[in-house]
């Protein structure tokens, strides 16, 4: 399988290539936009960059997040309470781009995008310097329209695979995906777990062999030892709820940024330089 046009040219691909050049698994932290407020999110992304993030995922709050566990649900509720919308997330992304932040992936449910309109969203995402878009509830069977709008705008549509994905789905997902493939580590919702699922390594290795894109693993990963384990067989690792919980526990504290940076650094440490 060869990478299609546009698949290798983006900032996300460059970030993965850079990490690979340093023999390092890419670190991809996730924060919810607007939790506790948008100005803080903007500063937290700076802290994540200093802490060693290669790509940053920005969660767009949605009223009915069916794939999220309690930690991310609460963060979305707080952000919605602050009036955060997809539009304000795009403005946030534009500001981050100006500040020299790592590549940004918007992590959203489909309805806010659908509501804005696929074409207008793709244009706005490109204008805002968004590098990739990950839509939790949009499998490749339904993603043709969004892909058709994002692709000419130069924005990657991040693909998703899970432990229940049959082998034939890898090609289907890769056909529309750019940037990287997000491999969901387990059946379930977002949120920290103590263990890594049995069989994960084999599943990820098989997907890597079949895919034409880097594979990042996420869902339930929040500790340096888990990051170290993932790094031995994946191209990237996503840490979400553990970080969102840290923000929840220390929102408003003077040292929030320092804590977030230190936490990110602790996750980056086992990945090497």
């Amino acid at each position, binding site marked *: 399988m060869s990478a299609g046009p546009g698949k290798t040219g983006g900032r996300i691909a460059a970030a993965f290539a850079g990490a690979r050049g340093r023999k390092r698994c890419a670190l991809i932290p996730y924060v919810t936009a607007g939790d506790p407020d948008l100005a803080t999110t903007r500063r937290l992304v700076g802290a994540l960059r200093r802490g060693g993030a290669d790509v940053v995922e920005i969660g767009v709050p*949605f*009223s*009915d*997040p*069916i*794939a999220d*566990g309690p930690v991310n*649900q609460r963060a979305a509720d707080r952000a*919605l309470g602050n009036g955060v*919308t*997809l*539009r304000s997330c795009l403005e946030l992304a534009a500001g981050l781009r100006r500040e020299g932040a790592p590549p940004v992936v918007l992590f959203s449910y*489909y*309805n*806010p*995008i*659908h*509501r*804005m309109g696929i074409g207008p969203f793709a244009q706005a995402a490109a204008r805002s310097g968004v590098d990739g878009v990950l839509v*939790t*509830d*949009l*499998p490749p*069977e*339904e993603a043709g329209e969004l892909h058709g709008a994002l692709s000419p705008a130069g924005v990657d549509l991040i693909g*998703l*695979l*899970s*432990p*229940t*994905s*049959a082998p034939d*789905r890898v090609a289907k*997902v890769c056909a529309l995906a750019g940037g990287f493939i997000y491999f*969901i580590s387990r*059946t*379930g*919702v977002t949120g920290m777990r103590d263990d890594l699922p049995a069989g994960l390594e084999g599943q990820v290795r098989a997907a890597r062999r079949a895919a034409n894109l880097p594979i990042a693993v996420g869902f339930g990963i929040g500790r340096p030892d888990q990051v170290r384990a993932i790094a031995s067989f994946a191209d990237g690792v996503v840490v979400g709820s553990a970080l969102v919980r840290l923000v929840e526990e220390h929102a408003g504290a003077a040292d929030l940024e320092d804590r977030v940076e230190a936490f990110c650094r602790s996750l980056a440490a086992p990945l090497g330089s």
Partner: protein
Amino acid sequence: MKTPDEHGRFGPYGGRFVPETLMGPLRDLEEAWKAARSDPGFLKELDHYLKTYAGRPTPLYRADNLAARLGGQTRVYLKREDLAHTGAHKINNTVGQALLARRMGKTRIIAETGAGQHGVATATVAALFRLRCAVYMGEEDMRRQALNVYRMRLLGAEVRPVLAGSRTLKDAISEAMRDWVTNVRETHYVLGSVLGAHPYPAMVRDFQSVIGDEARLQILEAEGRLPDALIACVGGGSNSIGLFHAFLGDPGVRMIGVEAGGTGLEPGRHAARFAGGSLGVLQGTRTFLLQDEAGNILPTHSVSAGLDYAAVGPEHAHLRDTGRATYTHVSDDEALGAFHALAELEGIIPALESAHAVAWLLREGEGGRLGSRVIVNLSGRGDKDVEQVARRAGEEAGGA
């Protein structure tokens, strides 16, 4: 017979908007359902339980006192789903899905419930077929429908309160989807209406089509002709699609779906998706829903918990586009008026959901305007609502 296309789309509606983790299980479910519906053994077993356990066929009752109230020009027939086991049409679907779950080797079933009728119907078949069962119910609905919570527990189901969001049906569906995505290997999700990702809207419709299949034979036997109109309430829309489906090819039969108008058409005061909604994607399907400018789902209100939901089944959106069915709404007060009227005129206490259909008949059906014969789907009985109605009457009396 209109079926969805291979992607589960009814025109521009429907589809399969779910996390990747559910794509495999939905494909497995679709294949199991397709195999089952053409397997004489499965159909025989389904028929057996519907007849000997669920009490089918339900009667088609000619409600002459109600007809007299309208002026006597229109014969009114009530399809008595309220007489089915557990008190509503919901059992038609849960028997079918439980048999399917058993056939797929699943050992556990889960469900969401609003009014509690689908939860009770699921808990019932879980007991019958020896399956473990958990039912998700919004905390607000548990308060409104305390009797049904106790019924589910008597039947051996675990009722899990949902504290997220508006604490009603929508949030219960989200929580059930989270459970399913976590325990998908041994669990089947018994979705209770013609909602969600493909194949649910088509599969639930197929299991509920028995309502219209029976009603069509019954009216032909009683009257020697088809009715002029069918009237049914629409929450997700399973009782209405179940009644409508057998008549889709009969152009002379009007179909009217009645949504919950609540206390007014301002956002948050109703659940009339076709009156105040727009196209969107929620909980697996593309359809009409109540949302704000940013695409977040709006709170809804109805006196009836079973109609209190922000989205409508995708096939209804398609039937509306094609003009085959029309959709309207009645208010909480009109539904309550119909609840009392049917009790007094016919000795039948309807569910508040079904009372919406009766209310529309009372409002629009005078003087023969709907033709000479109509069928109203009495989708459930009102025992579950008696306490709520009494409490409301007490509050109004006390406050007056």
